[in-house]
């Protein structure tokens, strides 16, 4: 039988203590970059190239940590609790208000210099990385979320680009009847992170708002009810489909099984990959102004971008720290002129936006013309954004799946959002 003396027992306890501190031991010595683009198969090589080029230029190894888009917030908030935050992390612009509550987030006005950031980046773009007047993230790529049409599907259905919502509905009916097994409008109906974007545009197109700048919930309006009834009607007539997330929409569109969907300009990169046609797929990807309620109304789009934030700790000690050099490198023309166009997005720096590769790409010109001036995401700017998104998604699903009337869903959305904003204080 095994027998332990006190010294051996002490060793056992020490080993246990070391195991208990495993997260601290497990932290890599290299600065790290958590990225959802790195986790996307078609886009991983692009991020890897940026990391490799950075190493060649600075001698610093940046360790990539892939995290699925939908899990980034979860991972960061859990890593904060286990003290294993990465040095830097890629964010969607709408997550920043929630992530900015992490005490370890770095004030980049201090780390990089506010004046330098303002000189390099347009104020409207830089604002995506700011909360409460402080810059907590640098923009990495930018653009807007708007509507895209599939030219081939429109031709098959014998229709043109719809200008009004009434024409849009007729176009969807034509696609349903003439393109077998299609989802005419691949609106997102499944993921609470993505549903609010599509519905927000619909609410704006009907002349309504969800929440104003002061935090007042406004969805319980005639416009809100009309937007919900419009979407519920599309579902009833099988013009949109249940169980669709954004990746599903991209695949349906790329495979010619959908006429329209809502996405960021990055859609072009996904369509190239998912269609199997590469750049030849660009021929049928058509950015269009969102159809409006009545002729003369303004088409709507949502401001969109990817950001990079940093967390206090190893790699972010001072202005010469590897993490700071990495952030500066991401804003260089070398990255902005390669990564952003490769992801079918616009560079964020003033010099990057003037690069020939951007200026000469007709897709960017068409996109800018189609989407016009994007508006700020009305849900993502609040620190209780995740809860608001869940409420909106649940009520939206309840209405389009026939569990509630559109009016009841909007009334419930209004009261639940008000309670959430009240709780937020």
């Amino acid at each position: 039988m095994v027998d332990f003396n006190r010294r051996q027992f002490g060793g056992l306890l020490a080993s246990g203590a070391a195991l208990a501190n495993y997260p601290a031991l497990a932290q890599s010595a290299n600065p790290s970059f958590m990225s959802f683009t790195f986790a996307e198969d078609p886009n991983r090589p692009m991020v890897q190239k940026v990391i490799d080029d950075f190493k060649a230029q600075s001698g610093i190894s940046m360790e990539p940590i892939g995290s699925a888009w939908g899990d980034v917030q979860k991972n960061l908030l859990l890593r904060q609790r286990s003290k294993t935050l990465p040095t830097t992390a890629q964010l969607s612009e709408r997550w920043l208000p929630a992530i900015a509550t992490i005490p370890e987030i770095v004030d980049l006005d201090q780390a990089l210099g506010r004046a330098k950031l303002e000189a390099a980046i347009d104020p409207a773009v830089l604002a995506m990385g700011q909360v409460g007047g402080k810059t907590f993230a640098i923009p990495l790529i930018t653009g807007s979320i708007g509507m895209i049409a599939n030219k081939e599907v429109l031709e098959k259905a014998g229709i043109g680009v719809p200008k009004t919502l009434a024409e849009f509905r007729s176009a969807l009916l034509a696609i349903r009847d003439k393109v077998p097994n299609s989802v005419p409008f691949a609106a997102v109906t499944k993921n609470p992170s993505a549903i609010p974007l599509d519905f927000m545009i619909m609410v704006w197109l009907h002349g309504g708002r969800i929440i104003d700048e002061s935090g007042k919930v406004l969805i319980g309006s005639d416009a809100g009810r009309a937007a919900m009834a419009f979407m519920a009607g599309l579902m009833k007539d099988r013009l949109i489909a249940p169980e669709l997330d954004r990746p599903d929409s991209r695949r349906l569109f790329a495979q010619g099984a959908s006429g329209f969907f809502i996405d960021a300009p990055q859609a072009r990169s996904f369509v190239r990959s998912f269609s199997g046609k590469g750049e030849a797929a660009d021929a049928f990807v058509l950015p269009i102004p969102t159809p409006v309620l009545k002729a003369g109304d303004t088409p709507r789009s949502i401001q969109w971008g990817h950001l990079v934030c940093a967390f206090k700790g190893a790699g972010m000690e001072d202005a010469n720290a590897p993490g700071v050099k990495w952030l500066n490198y991401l804003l260089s023309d070398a990255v902005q002129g390669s990564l952003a166009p490769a992801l079918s997005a616009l560079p964020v720096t003033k010099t990057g936006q003037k690069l020939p590769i951007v200026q000469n790409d007709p897709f960017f010109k068409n996109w800018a013309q189609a989407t016009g001036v994007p508006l700020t995401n009305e849900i993502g700017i609040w620190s209780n954004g995740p809860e608001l998104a869940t409420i909106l998604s649940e009520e939206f699903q309840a209405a389009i799946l026939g569990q509630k009337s559109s009016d009841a869903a909007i009334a419930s959305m209004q009261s639940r959002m008000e309670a959430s904003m009240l709780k937020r204080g």
Partner: protein
Amino acid sequence: MATGVDASLSPPLSPQPSPLARKGGLKAHERRIGRLFLLPALAAFTLVILYPFLRAIGYAFTRSNLQTPEPVYIGVANFISILGSPEILGAFATTAIYVVFATTGTVILGLGWALILNQPFAGRSALRALTLIPWVLPSTVTAFIWGWIFNSRFGVLNAVLVSTGIIPFPTAWLSTTSGAMAAIVMTKIWFSIPLFMSFFLAGLQSLDKEQIDAARVDGASNYALLRDHILPHLRPVLLVVVVLGVIGNLQQFDTIFALTGGGPVSATSVLSIQVYRLAFDQWDIGMASALGLLWVATILPAAYFYLRHLLKGA
């Protein structure tokens, strides 16, 4: 009384134990070693279960969300919020429906399948082995298989029903309240049957065949055999299987999350999913902890019943 033995020849009884002897004797030493072997498991239990559980109890009485990264003590306010939230209370009803249907379905079909596999026929051993496949599959793989069966666009179920003209166009089964609930119940039953069947089969193999033969000679029907002989014999097994089934179904998370995510809306949002949503979708750790405690409370009666039965048997 004289024994005839010279006492001076007997070995002298030592008043002191040998210096090499274990303190407190051999049994005490073995007890100490036993406790030492228990330490790793105890340490793991403390780190992985007890400590998080105690932390969760603490969080249940705090406001801990994105606006308050440092928890603020609020007494029983989270529990009051739960009682006032129809969405969260609905999760209790959803859980009850899921547990009742999943447990009942698995017990009935598991018993039926065990009765079939207890009969002598060619290929019985191969069929018994094949039956275990659903149990061996990872639960998320199982969920994806069933997700594909029920998929509204590419699903096998729709393909069969549309091609045979039973429905005019594909139906989104997982997007209806009853369809989604039926799907998660069927999935759970499908991969739980092998385990339940194994329990019942083991019980059936200890059944006295002569008793069955005698009953048959007396003219007992199959139903009478089941009612009067087989079920009474399987009663202890049935008790354990039902209790284990209830506990397992109360804890179920992975297949439901992978298949429906708790939706549509909250139609399949059982307590485990609701806790996850509160904690990781809405980042309300205080509310999630409070609901988690109530969830544990629903499991405790079944766990107590099972442990009591187990200890009685021991």
